[in-house]
């Protein structure tokens, strides 16, 4: 499963708005890094990784809500939720199918017939979820969600970071978008 990247530069004295900017930048980058191959139902870990990343981004947007311009935040959060919902619609049958495979493997052959009929139904749900996810990804692209997230993060940052901004003495500035992230990670 995808592990969350550590957000660099955060300390007790970091200005809350600067922490918000850093958190949203890092979490947004994770979401879009995991978007490749999510429509492949043969590899259910891809959609899982993107869903977890989206959930973390949503959490960051909610935790730091007060730091962002209200209107833009509401619009971005709504779109992130829509993406998360679409990922959930695809992921739920994935999980159920994996669970049923595990149960079926331990039951008798006579019991498997009934479980297989439920598997067929869940496969249809999985395909339906995949079609919905494809549309949601397209909507995210059309609405320039990635760019809007970057702008939202920028709006939370202190006005003059070059002069130290709101960062306390000795604090490391947040990671810039596109910068190479550190390899360490925190709890998934």
């Amino acid at each position, binding site marked *: 499963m995808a592990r969350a990247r550590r957000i660099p530069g955060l300390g007790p004295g970091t*200005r*809350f708005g600067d922490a918000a900017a850093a958190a949203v930048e890092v979490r947004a980058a994770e979401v879009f890094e995991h978007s490749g191959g999510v429509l492949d139902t043969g590899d259910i870990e891809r959609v899982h990784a993107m869903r977890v990343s989206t959930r973390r981004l949503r959490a960051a947007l909610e935790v730091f809500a007060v730091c962002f311009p209200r209107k833009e935040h509401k619009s971005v959060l709504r779109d992130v939720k829509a993406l998360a919902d679409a990922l959930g619609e695809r992921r739920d049958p994935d999980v*159920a199918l994996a669970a049923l495979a595990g149960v079926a493997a331990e039951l008798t052959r006579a019991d498997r017939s009934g479980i297989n009929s439920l598997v067929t139904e869940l496969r249809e749900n999985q395909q339906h979820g995949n079609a919905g996810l494809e549309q949601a990804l397209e909507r995210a692209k059309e609405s320039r969600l990635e760019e809007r997230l970057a702008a939202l993060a920028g709006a939370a940052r202190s006005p003059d970071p070059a002069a130290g901004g709101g960062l306390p003495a000795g604090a490391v500035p947040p990671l810039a978008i596109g910068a190479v992230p550190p390899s360490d990670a925190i709890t998934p």
Partner: protein
Amino acid sequence: MKARRVKRLDPEGTLADNARRIAAVRLKELRSFAPRALDPAEVDALHDMRIAAKRLRYVLEITESALGPAAREGAKSAKRLQDLLGEIHDCDVMLPRVHAHTDRLRSEDTRWVRQAAGSRAKDLAPSATRSAPNRARYRGLETLAVYLSARRTVLFDRFLREWEALEAGGFAARLTEGISPAPAESGPGLSPRAPEPAAPPGGAGP
């Protein structure tokens, strides 16, 4: 479940002060579900408690570097609780799905057997069910339903034990104390040792 509003958050304030405020509200929110969620029939309360555990976990994870090791430990406890409640939730979702699927198969078979009898049949022999297309499927689905019901009970009993252990171990007090500012730390916070800060504009919170 809509998250409780966190008052007096300040974008110009420090991460630590704001994080303590949010964590305190999320912790209180989690514990508020305990009385109802300890009843196995309260499916919605269990679901809400899982969401509350998830919110607490995420705020502690994202602010761990500001709140220290107590936040890391708190996040781990919240994750364990979230995962266990998630397993219970999966049973609560899957069981009605199995019942609904069984009902659909039964309806299909009923229509099939009725049609096979012909439109002018006076009665129906039990042997007519031998040709029902789904007749071999009920056993597996009923076995699955039994398994899910029993597993749900096992997981719920485990949840009760783990929740009681958390409470008995002073999880909430340890977390609150652990993320409180040290006496030398400047700036207001949530600790009873520190005064409440003045209210900044806004106040809508996560």
